[in-house]
């Protein structure tokens, strides 16, 4: 039981390469989040794994057997679609039962299973409801119940929360995490929302223009984004360029930061958001610039500093003695990392 394995998946359409040589593994019991901006190829990768799209090159294997030539309905995978794709002519019970009938479950077991799933997703007694009478959150739950009912050997979720409003999304993400945690099968969760990916996934694969650029546990990826794309995508946008001096410290327009080992010459630094504080005087490890904008945001206030045409933002406690707009300001940055270009 080794789970899902994708090797060298490539997809070309209309002269464009949408996926380039993607390889990844998902083991049973693990949830992998595919995270990336829209258009990065994550949905295409999902559809290739499902068999709904055929790759131009590459292999999809499950438990060490090549399934590349199996049509989707013979792969035994489950998928929860964006906007849910519930069958509008069937009621809730018949939607959940659909896959059970295809797998030829006997009638009494089917009924039992439908009830079991509706209980699991918190919709007991909804069997005879019509689909167009359900709220967005209820549809999402029915879609999950329908995907899980026939006991798929792999579960895929394509932006399942994207069409819901924010408060509902946060609540359902928690419930999804609990349900996914109880499954003994591999699961793939596609999203463009890093908070959702962090909350739900055991591992994260970040995709950028058709390639997987980084794979790791959520905390690992957060602590070591390694590339500027990953750092920015995770919401850490304070990337500045500078020159490494012989002592290993990097001189930037905002001041000197370091030391980071490496040869002298140009370097890109991430000024991490953790533990930044307002200080009164410049110095090593302190970013100095003009407070271009001061945006109050409740408990914390975002201060934007500019220096040498570059811009960085810091989230500071609103209680601090914040600078006024246009005044010089200094922020101590205790953690920095060098990024690959």
């Amino acid at each position: 039981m080794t789970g899902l394995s994708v090797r060298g998946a490539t997809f070309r359409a209309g002269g464009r390469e949408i996926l380039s040589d993607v390889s990844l593994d998902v083991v049973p019991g693990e949830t992998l989040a595919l995270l990336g901006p829209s258009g990065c190829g994550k949905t295409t990768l999902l559809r290739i794994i499902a068999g709904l799209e055929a790759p131009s090159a590459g292999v999809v294997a499950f438990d060490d057997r090549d399934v590349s030539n199996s049509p989707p309905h013979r792969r035994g995978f489950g998928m929860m679609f964006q906007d849910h794709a519930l069958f509008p002519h069937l009621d809730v019970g018949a939607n959940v039962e659909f896959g059970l009938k295809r797998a030829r479950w006997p009638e009494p077991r089917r009924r039992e299973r439908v009830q079991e799933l509706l209980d699991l997703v918190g919709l007991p007694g909804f069997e005879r409801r019509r689909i167009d009478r359900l709220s967005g959150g209820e549809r999402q739950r029915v879609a999950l119940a329908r995907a899980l009912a026939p006991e798929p050997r792999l579960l895929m979720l394509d932006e399942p929360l994207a069409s819901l409003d924010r408060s509902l999304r946060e609540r359902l993400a928690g419930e999804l995490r609990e349900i996914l945690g109880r499954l003994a099968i591999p699961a793939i969760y596609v999203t463009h929302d890093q908070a959702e990916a962090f909350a739900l996934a055991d591992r994260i694969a970040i995709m950028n223009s058709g390639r997987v650029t980084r794979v790791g546990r959520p905390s690992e990826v957060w602590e070591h984004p390694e590339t500027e794309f990953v750092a920015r995508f995770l919401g850490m946008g304070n990337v500045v360029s500078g020159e490494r001096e012989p002592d290993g410290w990097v001189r930037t327009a905002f001041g000197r930061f370091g030391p980071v080992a490496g040869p002298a010459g140009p370097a890109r630094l991430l000024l991490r958001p953790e533990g930044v504080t307002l200080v009164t005087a410049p110095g090593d490890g302190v970013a100095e610039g003009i407070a271009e904008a001061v945006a109050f945001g409740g408990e914390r206030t975002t201060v934007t500093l500019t220096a040498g045409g570059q811009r960085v933002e810091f989230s500071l406690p609103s209680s601090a003695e914040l600078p006024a707009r246009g005044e010089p300001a200094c922020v101590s940055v205790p953690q920095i990392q060098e990024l690959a270009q």
Partner: protein
Amino acid sequence: MDRSVDEKRPSLTARARERRPLLLVVPAGLLLAAFLAYPLQGILRESFQRDGGIGLLVEDTYYLERGWFTLWQATVSAALTLLLAVPLAWLLACHAFPGKRTIEAVLMVPFVLPTIVVAVAFSALVGPSGVANDLLTRIPGIEEPPIRILNTVWAILLAHVFYNVAVAGRIIATGWRGLDSRVEESAAMLGAGPAARFFLITLPALRNSLLAAASLVFLFCFTSFGVVLILGGPQFGTLETEIYRESLFLFRLPVAGALALAQLVVTFAAIVINARLQQATPQRTEARSTTPWDRKSAALGAAILALLLLLTAAPMAALVERSFHGGDGYTLRYYTMLDDNVRGQALFVAPIEAVRNSVVFALATVAVALPVGTLAAIGSVRARSTLAEALVQLPLGVSSVTLGLGFLVTMDQPPLNLRESPALVVIAHSLIAVPFVTRTVSARLRSLDPRLRDAAAMLGAGPARTFFAVEAPLLKGAIGVAAVLSFATSMGEFGATLLIARPEYPTIPVAIFRYLGQPGALNYGQALAMSTVLMAVTGSTFFLAERLVRVRTGGVS
């Protein structure tokens, strides 16, 4: 895990899997090859014969005049139709009024009526002894019937407007609903009054819809047969009636073939233009909110509605009234005589036989066109083949008399010796009905969320199972509408049937035409009675179709 991967199946590449649905288009392809391409080829060969054909056509100014008149009347008909269709579209797209759905459906009825019924209804309304003249001569001082437009071009144009105004209005209204009302609002904020907004903003934005409607009406009028033949009389021949005359009375098949070719060139051009324009029209699904009435627009709206309802209802009411109107008061005579077989009459058989023939042919047409057209729709949409879809629409470009002519010149000898067989009528009707079936079903199929199929596949349903468990239930309404449409098409088909139907198997339209050709009030009365029956049948099938559209399950956005 009990479901393992099936490795015994031959592995198909994805490309081949995508092409496979094209097999479903094969029945339609065979029908078209044998009964459209082959007859057209026959016409082509006929028209290039040494004595006559194309050569005669350009030498004789008579035919040039006919061609010119055909173009002229179709263009004028389209222009007049638009003049009324734009106000109708304004009502449909921008305003709400009580009974809107019902009124819209009532206005559509003329479009589904057989052309021969339209022609007979107009003769009942404005003919020398029609309802209008009857009423007017009761006014003291008016002795002679004052309305004398029968056998003039006005009768043709009026009938064409009657026939097409609602469908043109619907097309324009669809485009109008797609316009962003905020553009007009911002024009209003910049100081443009209602008239300026209409002419400077709305009308230019509707250009594609207007041209699409115009090209469609042009196409219908260019090949109009029943209306021209009956209302125009002998002096107003179009290409279509000329083909009919040359082939059935003068037996000059080469000339008929050459005329058919000339006609084909124009109809295909009109179809291509129409298809381009419809593609270019943006399809916005969100409904434009309706504008509230003010006193001026309400008065205008009421006037337009009254005019349109009068134009629509008067000929139909006149037809019904005259069918019960004997020389001296009201009578059921014309109806009771429908099952008499009087010797030496217009028909070889009792008129009621024609009704029976029509129903049998129509049912047979549904049985052929529905499966063939539905499969073609599924196949071409699945395989995403616009070529296959366009191919199935080809019969739309061939006028019905041309189709009949094609059958005349090719179906009387092997390999397809069907001249004696009533099946030929069913084949002709099916050929005409298949494009409508395919259009109706494929439009619905495309409106379905493609992920429903993906979802079914992920739950273990193969292509066939997916069709029967998911798509078929959602297509039920559209297939019902297609069945009703093909039934009505067959019931009303006139041009092709007139050329190919055997005397012993007349249909209702053919019988009506034969009665019209005979002198005497009794024959005319029977024509009126049969037209009324045919109007009732086709009209009620249309309302059935409207109901089907309304109740169809599961509207997916």
